[in-house]
């Protein structure tokens, strides 16, 4: 099954580059859309046996295990959803730009699919590099000095993270003799100095890739200087898969039970929540504010991932449900991952709508846009209420799961931080909403129209998904239970 998720984007990449430029540029959105829909279907049905007879045709020339377990299937679905949003938002530029950018989006997609499916450290490194390298070029395609310098800054930091990861893998390989997740998890104990160094390097590497707080220098510029569609891709999926998903997987499977990395991830996650939220408050530009909000929200996921590693197998009974704290934390992290992809894509789509209609995203040049752009204004409200974790929306449930897991594990300090910072989230989004959408219409915007249909439609669908996921969450939990989770 797994191999399909690599082959489909790569075959479509090949098809996209067969015809002439002009034809290929017209074809590009359709190809991206087809790939995204196919991946959604494959991911949703990956647990069924009906695909098995077809997989025999495709075998890898190298013995790399690609596993699709329930968590992977959920993430594959989310990746496809974000790529679909990118397709609808639309890639700007001339024919050449369109073909190149679409090809790179397909490469990023294949890279991300690889990252979520692999089960050994060196292949993980290879897929992380594929994803990151395509991202540097995607950020730089806008060809302004701002995007070029953001891309180079990301390049240096991500390059150093990759080097740290290779050095750490080599140190672990020296001790264990293999880099397979299961074998490393069985053999590692975190006692001797070489492995300790390796673990520290791993923590640093993945925190840089994720953009967690002391290592977040590249993230706001990369998000805010790239074009609208690309910032949706980066914020919704890429950096989360490259950094945060890797932290979830490694912390809960490979380094489970070793206190060092788990404590480090929890502390850095909490720090990201605090610093991201307060830094977002001081921003003067819409996309930068959303980027800092991203840092704050990924802090929640990293915190939960660390908790999953720290409280490995303490069983608890919750409303008649027998589960472990680690499982609760992983579910919280994965659901928050999905929610984040939904509401952050929604907010970035709205930022794109504002940028297209007003020509600026500076907060002090905007005001009262809800009068002229009602859909954009009100879907933003849904997006930020979900981010802040208010009850009817999906963000509430994932934050609730994370806080319950923290309380059950007796991590009261972290639980209090998680709850208080949700209030700060509400605070900075109220600033954003008041300066951009509410209040009196600013002079010069009398002629303003609602954004084009594609953007409005995407906003409505994403807002609907956020609300539906929130209202139907008990059924979602039952579904996850059916998959063997919880």
């Amino acid at each position, binding site marked *: 099954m797994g191999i399909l998720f690599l082959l489909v984007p790569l075959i479509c990449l090949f098809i996209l580059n067969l015809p002439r430029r002009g034809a290929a540029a017209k074809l590009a959105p359709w190809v991206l859309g087809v790939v995204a829909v196919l991946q959604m279907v494959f991911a949703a049905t990956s647990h069924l046996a009906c695909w098995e007879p077809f997989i025999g045709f495709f075998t890898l020339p190298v013995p790399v295990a690609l596993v699709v377990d329930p968590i992977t299937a959920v993430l594959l679905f989310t990746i496809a959803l974000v790529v679909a949003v990118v397709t609808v938002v639309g890639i*700007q530029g001339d024919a050449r730009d369109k073909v190149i950018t679409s090809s790179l989006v397909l490469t990023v997609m294949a890279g991300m699919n690889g990252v979520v499916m692999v089960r050994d450290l*060196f292949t993980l*490194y*290879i897929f992380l*590099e594929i994803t990151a*390298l395509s991202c*540097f*070029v995607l950020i*730089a395609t806008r*060809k*302004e*000095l*701002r995007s*070029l*310098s953001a*891309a*180079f*800054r990301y*390049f*240096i930091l991500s*390059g*150093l993270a*990759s*080097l740290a990861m*290779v*050095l750490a*893998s*080599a*140190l672990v*390989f*020296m*001790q*264990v*003799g*293999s*880099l397979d997740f299961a074998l490393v998890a069985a053999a590692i104990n975190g006692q001797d100095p070489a492995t300790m160094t390796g673990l520290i390097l791993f923590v640093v590497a993945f925190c840089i890739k994720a953009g967690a707080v002391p290592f977040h220098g590249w993230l706001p510029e990369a998000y805010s*200087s790239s*074009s*609208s569609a690309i910032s949706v891709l980066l914020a919704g999926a890429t950096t989360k898969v490259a950094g945060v998903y890797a932290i979830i997987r490694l912390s809960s499977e490979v380094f489970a039970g070793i206190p060092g990395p788990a404590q480090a991830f929890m502390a850095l996650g909490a720090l990201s929540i605090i610093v991201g939220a307060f830094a977002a408050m001081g921003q003067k530009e819409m996309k930068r504010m959303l980027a800092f909000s991203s840092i704050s929200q990924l802090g929640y996921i990293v915190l939960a991932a660390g908790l999953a590693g720290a409280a490995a197998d303490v069983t608890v009974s919750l409303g008649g449900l027998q589960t472990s704290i680690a499982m609760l934390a992983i579910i919280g992290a994965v659901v928050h991952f999905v929610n984040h992809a939904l509401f952050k894509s929604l907010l970035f789509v709205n930022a*794109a709508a504002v*940028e*297209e*209609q*007003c*020509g*600026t995203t500076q907060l002090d*040049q905007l005001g009262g846009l809800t009068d002229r752009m009602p859909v954009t204004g009100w879907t933003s409200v849904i997006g930020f209420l979900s981010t802040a974790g208010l009850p009817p929306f999906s963000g509430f449930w994932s934050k609730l799961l994370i806080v319950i897991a923290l309380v059950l594990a007796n991590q009261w300090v972290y639980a209090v931080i998680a709850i208080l910072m949700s209030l700060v989230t509400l605070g900075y989004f109220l600033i954003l909403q008041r300066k951009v959408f509410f209040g009196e219409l600013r*002079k*010069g*915007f*009398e*002629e*303003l129209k609602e954004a084009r249909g594609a953007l409005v439609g995407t906003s409505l669908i994403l807002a609907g998904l956020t609300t539906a996921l929130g209202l139907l969450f008990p059924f979602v939990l039952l579904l996850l239970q059916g998959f063997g989770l919880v």
Partner: protein
Amino acid sequence: MLTKLFIVALVLTATAGIYSIVATRNLLRVLIAMEIISKAAVLLLMLAGAINGQMAQAEAFAVALIIIEAVVTAIGAVLCIALHAKTGSLDIGLLGKAAQAILPTAAQATPAVLPTQATPAEEGAHNAE
């Protein structure tokens, strides 16, 4: 004996790479320094293979690593060339916030609107004039 030699070479290479990445202000040299550190990583992989006896696997990792490094360097060089073509400089200060204040091209970041479509903001500016 050979192992000790390996460790000395490894430590020297890694130190040289880390020193040059900290000391230089030239983006191209930062790229070269990253390459030097990655050579240390290859050495460490081979050392690991020699110590645990899994030499074949270590060689496979090292070859894959060298291929990836070539791609990384190519993309880094492309970004360097683009930055140089844009600004005529390769100073590391280009990556900081100061660059946007110094260089005029960065200050007037063009919004992603179609060129034919006058935005309301611009129209407002015209009216004011």
